[in-house]
């Protein structure tokens, strides 16, 4: 009897846990997720604070979605992803909308919870000094060459009338 | 005579710019007109459904 109860409890615990849907899945099968609670995870690529709420745009493997959350949750984010930064990875749960009536038909997720699961960091992009110097020299030489040839042509035109060359 | 010439060119300058500014507003006004018309049609769709 006890064992049966234990098994049933275990099944009940396991059943509703959803693995995090990838953003791509949410976008590719919107009908199956529309209006339902989903878990999401992605890198922050944009934060727009609007009063006591905020938009957090997250990116994962080529897909991006806007998450509508509370401003305090958004303020926990320290890094926004761009060329020189890897953004914080945030995860959470929320209601997915295919066409949110509150937000003019946008695709979005209204977050129930949003936490920073991995802090981002700065991405170093050091300048290659050798490449820089070489390319600068070549560019300068190319421009000077162009001016020189143009000058040459002008001089030649003064001395030899067209069309004798 | 010099003062008269200066006055003349200033008026021309203003008139030229006035055309430009009102022209810009006319063009932007056109886009606003389109948007208002579009929004009105959206409301119409909602009402007559």
């Amino acid at each position, binding site marked *: 009897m006890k064992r049966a109860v234990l098994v049933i409890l275990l099944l009940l615990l396991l059943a509703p846990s959803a693995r995090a849907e990838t953003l791509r899945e949410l*976008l590719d099968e*919107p*009908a199956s997720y529309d209006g339902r609670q989903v878990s999401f995870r992605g890198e922050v*690529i*944009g934060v*727009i604070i*609007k009063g006591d709420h905020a*938009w957090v*745009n997250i*990116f994962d493997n080529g897909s*991006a979605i*806007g998450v509508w959350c509370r401003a305090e949750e958004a303020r926990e984010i320290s890094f926004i*992803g*761009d*060329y*020189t930064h890897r953004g914080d990875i945030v995860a959470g749960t929320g209601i997915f909308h*295919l*066409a949110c*009536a509150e937000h*003019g*038909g*946008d*695709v979005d997720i209204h977050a129930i919870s949003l936490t920073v699961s991995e802090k981002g960091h700065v991405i170093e*992009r*050091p*300048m*290659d000094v050798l*490449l*820089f110097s070489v*390319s*600068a020299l*070549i*560019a300068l030489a*190319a*421009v000077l*060459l*162009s001016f020189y*040839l*143009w000058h040459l042509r002008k001089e030649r035109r003064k001395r030899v009338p067209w*069309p004798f060359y | 005579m010099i003062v008269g010439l200066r006055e003349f060119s200033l008026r021309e300058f203003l008139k030229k710019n006035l*055309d*430009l500014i*009102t*022209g*810009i507003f*006319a*063009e*932007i006004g*056109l*886009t*606003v007109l*389109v*948007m208002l018309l*579009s*929004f009105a*049609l*959206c409301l119409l*769709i*909602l009402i007559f*459904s």
Partner: protein
Amino acid sequence: MWGAMVLTPLTKEDLRIVGFNLSRISYVTGFVLFLPIIVAIFFNEFDNIPYFLIGSAISFILGSILYHFLYTQAEMELKHALVMAAVAWLFAPLLASIPIWLSGSMASPLDACFESISGFTGTGLTLAPDIDHMSRSINFLRHFLQFMGDGIGIIVISLSILGRTEMSSVLAFKGEAKEVGIRPSIVRTSRIIIGIGVMFLAIGTALFTVAGIQEGLDPGQAFFDGLNHAMTGYATGGFTVHSQSLLYYHSLWVEVAAIVIMIIGALNFNLHYAVLGGRRSEILRNLEVRVLLFLMVAFGFLVSSNLFSSGLYPTAESLFRKGFFQVISAQTTTGFQTVPPVHLMLVWPVFSILILSLAMLLGGSANSTSGGIKMLRVGVLFKSLVNEIKRSLLPRSAVVVGSFHHVEETPLSDKIIRGSAVIAMGYLILFMMGTMLTVLHGYGLEDSMFETASALGNVGLSCGITSPSMSPLLKVTYMFLMWAGKLEVIAVFVLIGFILLALRRGIK
């Protein structure tokens, strides 16, 4: 067929003329590739600077080679101008793809070329796998290419900066599909086009910046994004700073700013010149404006009704921001998108996709930054259809002569009708070819039509077909369509004729 016509064989001189004039395009591209260095310095992206330097250097070196070895003072004729325009619109993007490829932002050199052509032609279809992490200077270059290539026109720029004798300039200008007519002097016309472009760029940037700040962006980002989107909005290009296009902002006001700049970009240069010069009545009497507005509102109504009845967008605001916005983006051939591409394929009803495809194919005004068959031709063909109907209904002796108002009253002559019909035919042929090739790759019919119309009309709206994993053949096909659409088809056919002639008769 070819033998029956007396065509003068190609001479080496013909090739010289084309090649020599390409040197100017090369030089201008070299200068254009220098500018993003300023952006790179501003954002401390020094590692990117070599890419622009190398691209610029190659442009200048190639330009020098062409200038020195192919120097000629011979006059350009129409055939040279058309061929040169066609080649220039491949040559310049190829040069500009160098920094894009070197930066590692694209998956392959072919993708970099695709991106560059999409930039120059003002299309906006993108193969960039990760725009959000792209360097700001390379991202700026993408947007800048659209402003320079399509907003103003690479030939226009080279004319106004480097000047040239009147005749050849007129012809090169015509090759780029812009009618002469604003001012008698071609160089002055070019400068006016640039002036108008810069002015609307400033206005567009201001609108976007204000909207952005109002919505919660910090001023710096609002300005940078605003400047870039004003560039691509005016150029009716459609590249955006972020991968979600304008959906990134979730903002009605940003979309409103976008609509303002999109419609302005889709208006004829002659119209701008007339209206800004005081002839404001032109704005409502002009045939193209009338057709453009009518179609935008009519198509918008059809799409919105369809979307509403499908249950997808139940509020007026969402119908406006999704239905009308996408229609305006399509008709002006811009390509700003507020619906994820994959949703256009999977969620939107087919009828709306077809209307959007039609809107994209028909396009914006002639002599504007828009693509497509163009409103002037559509208006002319429609009026001539009406006249034909009239002719059949009236007695034989009656004479039906129509006219249309485009800056001035113009009679609807057979020549004008024929010109419009031929080009419309050209577009339709390419549209069918593109659609069939896309369908061959396994995509649905309406999605194939949509993506093909987007490429051919230089629009940039995507239903998801365009992606880095697209087959190389399809990438090349769309590159061809973007290029052909930009040149309004005729220049491309002349180039093909040029090549066939060279192959058949040889070069003397």
